[in-house]
């Protein structure tokens, strides 16, 4: 295998790729969808959680929260006002500080804080608000304070907000549309136009052709995944881990694209397979959309092992120990698909003969 020839072929793919409708479609669709949803749900320009406070005494914590760069703070005069603000979605998280809050925490006594959560607030906003609050209380008391937070969810939707539910679908679209379609359509076009045959009478091997197309799919898929997460402000606290998950997903997308391209005779059959088989790819995202569906069903589908860790890292602040099994399964699937790509290429070569 020659890395030089893979580079030459990749350059040709990059030269012709952006001129195709498929390229524009696969790149623009997730971005446009993401921007529309961000505007609809108002998450594009509000990346900080909004924290409401009602102070029944004279706590220094109010000032500390207002000075905190992690949240946007608003003070309310009464518990009723705070409840109303949370219910209306004016703030994501509201807390009621008892009258003698500061002295109790400084003495190390147990304190109970009542907290209200807007049902439609983003999971990551809830997590950030809680972590910020506990950090500030620790700063106030000078030690780990025995604070117990009692949470009440308010608002119409006391479940997962739509913007959170839609994130898996957008991420899957970003990773799989470009990652699959670019190698698949490129391979089908080369078969239809017989340019693949022309390449195979040069020193170029089929492996080099496949690698070039796979690298293109992988790169576009990874880039799109990162862009979409950035647009949705969903990097969480582990951007490296998220990038690794997207890279593994991008490998899967490119591999599936190559297999699809190897078997599809023409563009019509490629899109026919996409229409029927696409549901299998996006099934885990659809299951996320409707929490009333038993969520374990998602585990049947390979893309679950990409979506679940991405959601958990970006929305719940999960780390490596929480997603290790998913990563291992995803790596296993990627390795299996390498074998499947090899078989598909053999089939394609004999079909070309």
């Amino acid at each position, binding site marked *: 295998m020659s890395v030089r020839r893979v580079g*030459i072929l990749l350059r*040709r793919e990059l030269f012709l790729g952006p001129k195709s409708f498929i390229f524009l479609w696969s790149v623009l669709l997730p971005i446009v969808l993401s921007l529309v949803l961000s505007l609809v749900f108002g998450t594009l320009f509000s990346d900080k959680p909004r924290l409401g406070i009602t102070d029944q005494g004279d706590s220094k914590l109010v000032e500390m929260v207002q000075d905190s760069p992690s949240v946007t703070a608003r003070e309310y005069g009464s518990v009723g006002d705070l409840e109303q603000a949370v219910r209306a979605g004016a703030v994501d998280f509201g807390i009621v500080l008892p009258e003698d809050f500061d002295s109790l925490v400084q003495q190390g006594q147990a304190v109970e804080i009542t907290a209200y959560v807007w049902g439609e607030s983003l999971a990551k906003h809830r997590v950030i608000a809680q972590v910020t609050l506990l950090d500030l209380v620790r700063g106030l008391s000078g030690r780990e304070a025995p604070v117990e937070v009692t949470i009440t969810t308010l608002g119409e939707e006391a479940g997962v907000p739509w913007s959170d539910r839609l994130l898996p679908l957008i991420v899957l679209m970003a990773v799989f549309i470009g990652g699959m379609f670019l190698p698949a359509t490129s391979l089908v076009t080369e078969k239809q136009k017989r340019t693949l*045959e022309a390449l*195979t*009478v040069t020193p170029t091997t089929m492996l080099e052709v496949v690698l070039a197309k796979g690298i293109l799919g992988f790169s576009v898929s990874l880039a799109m995944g990162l862009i979409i997460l950035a647009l949705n402000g969903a990097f969480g606290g582990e951007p490296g881990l998220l990038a690794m998950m997207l890279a593994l997903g991008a490998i899967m997308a490119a591999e599936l694209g190559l297999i699809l391209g190897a078997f599809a005779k023409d563009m019509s059959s490629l899109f026919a397979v996409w229409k029927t088989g696409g549901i299998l790819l996006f099934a885990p995202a659809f299951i996320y959309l409707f929490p009333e569906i038993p969520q374990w069903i998602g585990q049947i589908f390979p893309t679950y092992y990409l979506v679940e860790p991405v959601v958990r890292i970006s929305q719940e602040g999960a780390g490596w120990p929480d997603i290790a099994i998913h990563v291992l399964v995803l790596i296993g699937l990627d390795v299996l698909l390498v074998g499947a790509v090899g078989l598909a290429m053999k089939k394609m070569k004999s079909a*070309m*003969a």
Partner: protein
Amino acid sequence: MAGDAIVAEELTYSYGELVAVDHISFKIAEGEILGFLGPNGAGKTTTVKMLTGQLKPKGGKAVVLGMDVASDAGKVRGEIGVCFEQTNLYEQMSALENLQLFARLFGVGDFDGKTLLKRVGLDGREKDKVEGYSKGMKQRLMVARSLVNRPRILFLDEPTAGLDPTSAEAICSIILEERARGATVFLTTHDMMEADKLSDRVAFMNGGKIVALDTPHNLKQQYGKRALKAKIQTPTGELLDREVVLDQPETPDLVHKLFAGERVVTIHSEEATLEDIFIKITGRGLKE
């Protein structure tokens, strides 16, 4: 004496039950032009695919420039140029970009695409996208592409099919130039005139087998007949045809009698075409 550029020994290929190429053996010397003739489905393309490393033979062996194609396909492909019957160019790229891409894949360092395009008559259009080219221009570009690595063996599959006489003539000239450079040419064609004009030897393929392989002259000698065709005028003014078969013991007498006893109006010699010979050998035409 030139060595063998191509040696096929008992080369065999089958698609399932269908035997496309059936134990064929032949040799082609370096610098030779071999015309490879046969009707559709005779096994010509399958043979070319085995010789160019696109297909692995199911039996036998193909040795190209001293290398076994089955085990050294990559090296063999670096030394050959292939021009396909059907256009397979990157149509969204220009002619120059097409040639430069293939030159890079062959690892040709000092490639001069413009000169090559001038040679095939495409100068001035080198930066135009190929999708705007006529069939003849595309075919000339296909030939140019097969020459980017200055191949030692050139495989040409119907290079002039469907072309206007000027384009066809230009391609024939290039084939002869390549032979003069020392390249071996494996020319697959339906065009008997072209094969006769260009080939040092021709091979007839039928039903997966090579049924004849020799120079056009020898084949005509062996299978064809040469004749004199005359038109005579009778005393009543009627025009009649007369034929005298040449190369026979009685030919001189017959010619003498023709001129002595008849009023010859026109006379010309006629020899068998390769098509006639193919029909005679196989019982079928080349364009079936």
